[in-house]
């Protein structure tokens, strides 16, 4: 009989304890980030898709068209083309496309590059309706950023 009353009292008490916990949480500030309206600062080592690096001294990209990245890529998603530089030695980059639908973000292209012409971008808002939206022309991106 005492166990019966004890259970009623301890049970009721535990219910009020539960209510106390939730009401405390009710008045605590919200912790969710309202993503499209606000974003967290980007971490410096974030690895998005690759991007060409701007050479401040020469005022162009750093690529020497060695094709190292194209050969290193395990997914075959990099295509690049170059032509003989006018009046000098070496080659100039004319086209650099990245097929991001195949890219696995392994970063081997960035590691293999002898002139550090490649880097990871901080792009992550990458939703789209078409496969073609993900074939990036990186040379055009670089020029758009520095024009």
């Amino acid at each position: 009989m005492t166990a019966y009353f004890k259970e009623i009292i301890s049970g009721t008490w535990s219910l009020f304890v539960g209510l106390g916990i939730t009401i405390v949480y009710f008045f605590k500030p919200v912790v969710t980030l309202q993503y499209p309206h606000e974003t967290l600062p980007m971490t410096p080592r974030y690895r998005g898709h690759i991007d060409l690096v701007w050479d401040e001294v020469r005022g162009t990209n750093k690529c020497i068209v060695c094709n190292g990245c194209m050969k290193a890529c395990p997914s075959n998603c990099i295509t690049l083309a170059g032509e003989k530089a006018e009046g000098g030695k070496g080659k100039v980059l004319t086209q650099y496309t990245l097929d991001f639908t195949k890219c696995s973000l392994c970063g081997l292209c960035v590691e293999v590059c002898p002139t550090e012409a490649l880097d990871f971008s901080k792009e992550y808002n990458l939703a789209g309706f078409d496969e073609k939206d993900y074939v990036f022309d990186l040379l055009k991106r670089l020029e758009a950023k520095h024009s």
Partner: protein
Amino acid sequence: MFFIDAELIRLLAFVLGVIGFVALNAAYLVWLERKEAGHIQRRIGPKEVGPFGLLQPLADALKLMTKNLITPDGVDPILFKIAPILVMVPAIMSFVTLPFSDTLVARNLDVGLLAVFAFASINVLGLLLGAWGSRNKYAVISAARVVSQNVAYEIPMLVIIVTLVMITGTLNLHEIVTLQTGGFWHWNVLKFSASPLMPVAFIIFFICMLAETNRAPFDMAEAESELVAGAFTEYPGMGFGVFFMGEYANIVVGTSLATILFLGGWDCPLGLFPGVHWFLIKMYALIFVVIWIRWTYPRTTFYGLLNLSWKILIPVAFFNLILTSAMLKVF
């Protein structure tokens, strides 16, 4: 000259007012529920549609109304269509006799309390018919649970009501409130001269009210993790919407009744400025608690639910009844 009876205008005003009040509450309690649930889980809740998400109920209603009203194969077409109405209409009917303030009452019936309980019991019938008419095994299981749950919880509730009627000596809701006016120490919840267990009686009434309106933690009718959506499984679009609104309308009726019976209706706690605003403040405070409880406790098991009623609530309610009658006889 065309003559309109003043009584007719009054009646029309009350019909429109009550339907408007119920519809507005049904819509905005959903918003309140989602906001409160959000903040308890440290989220924001609806915020995109209108300022503070205040237009969210309109968007929801629009979405439900654009949906096709399918009547599935094999359902009983009459029962299937009549069930949502049977849940919604009694809730609105109960407002006929609920007094909001000293003067704001549609019809002050002498058996008002009885009328409210008579209407409230139709709610279960609506769920039962809807579930049976759906011809869905989950719906039928849900209906069986709801009926046994409501039978179990109507007993302690009515025993508490009998106790209350013994104290007040009337079934007229207006008179019950009038007897409690003059400050919070006159309210039935603190009427220790009648029975020292009155706060317990209030808690029992509140628990039974939660069970009768099928609110969590007693939402056996719509145990979504076990029974898909229980009695509402086969209902598309606005058929489901009406059930949903009926649930919130029933919560409004239940909390209004708790306010009238135990918390002094429109009476101010300190005896100053009584009026309809006090009624609404108390009612919405109780609704806040109802939602707070839903987002605190998980759903009980079915056996736990029936054990609570038959082993704890009913004995305590009967003990309170005997104690009250003894105290009324002695003092």
